[in-house]
């Protein structure tokens, strides 16, 4: 049971969150400029690293914020990522 640092609510159990995938997966600004392969890479592929991954988490049961953390997929150590201003 992970303890996730929500930037607003503080430390909470993983059960309050949704792990929402790798943060470097960004929707291409102009999808039509992408080749089929590049588009498939965006849609389906992951880096899926063994080690630290920057990922989105959604505090769905709390403040409903989406935020990023750096999480080690082996040790489960977590480091918060400073929020960029909106």
């Amino acid at each position: 049971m992970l303890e996730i640092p929500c930037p607003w609510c503080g430390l909470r159990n993983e059960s309050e969150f949704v792990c929402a995938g790798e943060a470097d997966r960004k929707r291409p600004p102009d999808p039509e400029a992408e080749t089929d392969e590049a588009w498939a890479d965006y849609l389906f592929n992951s880096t899926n690293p063994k080690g630290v991954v920057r990922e989105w988490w959604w505090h769905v049961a709390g403040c409903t914020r989406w935020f990023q953390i750096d999480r080690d997929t082996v040790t489960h150590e977590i480091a918060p990522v400073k929020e960029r201003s909106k």
Partner: protein
Amino acid sequence: MTRLASGGVIDRQRPLRFLFNGKRYQGYEGDTLASALVANDVLIVGRSFKYHRPRGLLTCGPEEPNGLVQLVSDGDQPNLRATEIPLREGLEARSVNCWPSARFDLRAINSVLAPLFPAGFYYKTFMAGKWDFYSRFIRQAAGLGHSPKERDQGRYERVNHHTDVLIVGAGPAGIQAAKVASGSGHDVMVLDMQESPGGHLLFHPRQIDGQAGSDWVSREVGELQDRDNVTWLQSTTATGYYDHNMVIAVEHKPAESWLKERLWHIRARKVIIATGAVERPLIFPGNDRPGVMLADAAARYIRRFAAVPGKKVLIYTNNSTPYAQLETFKTAGIEIQGILDLRKNPSEAELCLASKLEVPVSVDARITGVQGRSGIRGVTYQSGAGSKTVRCDLVCHSGGWNPLIHLYSHAGGRSRFEQASAAFIPGERAQAAYPVGGANGTFSLAEGLKEATDVANSLFGESAGNRASGTPNAPAAEDEVPYRIDQIWPEKGDKGKAFVDFQNDVTTADIALAVRENFQSIEHVKRYTTAGMAVDQGKIGNPNVIGLVSRELGEEQASVGTTTFRPPFAPVSFGAIGGSERGPLIIPARTTPITAWNIENGAAMDEAGANFRRPFFFPRPDETMEDAVAREATAVRTSCGIYDGTPLGTFELQGPDTGELLNRLYTNRFDNLPVGRGRFGLMLREDGRLFDDGVTFRVDPNRYLMSCGTGAAGAVYAHIDRLLQTEWTDLKVYLVNVSAAWATMCVCGPLARAVLGKLESDISLDPTFRFLDFRDGTLEGINVRVARVSYTGELSFEVNVARRSALKLWKILMEAGKEFGITPVGSETSGVLRIEKGFISPGHEGDNITNPFDAGMGWIVDMTKPDFIGKRSLLRDVKLGGERQHVVGLLPDDEQALVADGSALLPAQGSDSRSGFQGHVTAACFSPTLKRTIALALLKDGQKRHGERVVISGLENSCVATVTEPVFYDPKGERMRG
């Protein structure tokens, strides 16, 4: 009866009667089943797993491998350790895995056949024929106790707890650590497995701070329990250490009378592991015979329970511990026949203790055989050149100590082999786990207390920036004899079975065989021989397995390493794990204000997605489902129906960019939707497949109200919120879920207008109120929003009302509709109406593979928009072309044919060159309106195959059908617009 006249914590004034294996015995309050059996001279407590050898108690604690019983008198529980069962009046228990009895077990024939059952023999035979045939017999023989047959009546709860410090184990080290940590103001929780605190001080008389150990325990614990910042639980086992310092524990005797057990989720900032150590057996032929017991266990039975396990004891050791127990044996009146010490050079201090009590010591001595099967007559041993036999009825042995590093390892901590203590002790730390005392391989009381003090001070004391705890110093204690051990393995040529895993009957020969066959990893040896896989999970035996493997391989024990420690530390009942969630609590059943009315009015209920339950249909007495659905559907088509649409998701979207957002979310346009109007929208996933559909209204220029499918609502909300917060952060839109705020009731059918017309209202239902318009106003004084939306294909008014007024309005509508035959309809009927109309359902026709063109919904896809979710994938689909499954209609030749959802489609004979699987029926029904069977289906290249014939192949029926357009009723939609 071998019970001392005094001593122990048993209450001799309170005798308890109990039954063991059908025989009546007596023990006392304060006994465990095991201690009562010892006191009653019951030697054989069970049979072993494979050879069915008779077994006696080996230990006194939760690590007991032999004394497994079925506790008949308390819910018929299997595989409980007799050492952990408190004695109760009328307790009844039986040995597991023996037949007809523990004393005389027919399966002991296995013992004779043992040469045919070496480790791994299953893998090498029974290849001919079916394993099922053989396994039937093998399964009967396996399995220890039997599963209870009655429902578990116990009640449980699961709680969350947060603490600064968790201390596992209330032995001297745990108590001392609690004292320091709580003294500095931290919240402290202490868990201890036993009924009373004190750890090994409960069993062994020691001095701390110049007083009796037991007095020190009661004074310190008493003070600690009075502190506000201390939570103290006895009879509570920490079973696993999980991520981020979450420890799970089971409280076996909650104070709350209604609870059987409580499961704790404890989140701690720091965890002190003070779980102590357990004694390890020595390996020698016959080491499993009843009457062979661990030395520390024997001492515990004597000290705590005044139960004496034998009259003449022989002590066998490779370390110093038993020397300190000689006095215990002596004062219990046991004749000590001598000490056989494997070591060549016991220490002066050890020999001094022995000579003080006139106990002869043979050094460099090795047991080569134990005489007696069901009880011991004597022991043969080798010392120097000669072989000797000594008479005894009890062998007490000690192979050293295993630190209980389970929790430390669960946390991810490494273990390392320490030569001096011949034990795997905590190595590199993971998480905030701090082992102290025996769990850390510190077996000396004095050093353990000091270690606990030092660790606690460094974590919680002044040096860690906390206020002084006032207890910076360790209490004074002295050890009778310093711990020394020399691991000496048995000779390879020894005859007779020497066990390393008692429960799974794994012997030294099995380990050697595994290594010989090239199973060299310790994990391989474990799996091939099953050593360490029994109910005790290798707590006492695993280090011996590692030692033997290292000897066979000629490698260091450190490089052989341990197998992975898997939670739980001790078995946990599934009842406790399930907590209080039973029946309706395991999944919430979400309700609407109308749910209760629906149930009262006879609805058969079904799951509607997102944990809502909704009416399936409303059977009248003596009506079949088909009858009821036909009646409900006919009402909608000819007069008036009503249903509760509240479970649909409803989201309010506000902000200047809402139109733009909707343009990107849906395949069609929404920025040009006029205020006061609604529009049907189709949402795709980014991979181009159908996701959701629904009607969205524009309430104000910057405020839209979106509705979406019940089951998809959560996913749609997440989808939109993600895009707003992570991708399109520049869009000014707020998303607010108002799904439960509004109840939605759909009045549908040609007489719907008449029904609403009966009510007092400021809403005009005249022809200017067009399809997909909405109007705000009141019905009978209740604030409502009425919208012209239709999911049935008929004239339909969707009345939205705040939850607080919903039931009232529903009843008003039912009353008003009475004269028009208003009929509540269920989801099965809605399904029929949908199929007739050919309305596509993402959950059915979508099937995770369908794009809007496949579904014949190209009309709602605006490919001229610069971008929308799914557009890029659609472009790819269009470009690549090729065979796709399209939504089609099917009309079976036999108009009454029974067609089940999910039926497969095959080419009709001679229809074309196609062969094999062609698709499947996504939804089929008998249409009461058309008086025939109709179906929607996904069919390969279906749009090109209208007029062709296919076979509908179901599990029970098959029929031939013609492929048609997927719409069977009012194709132009005149009725719903009317």
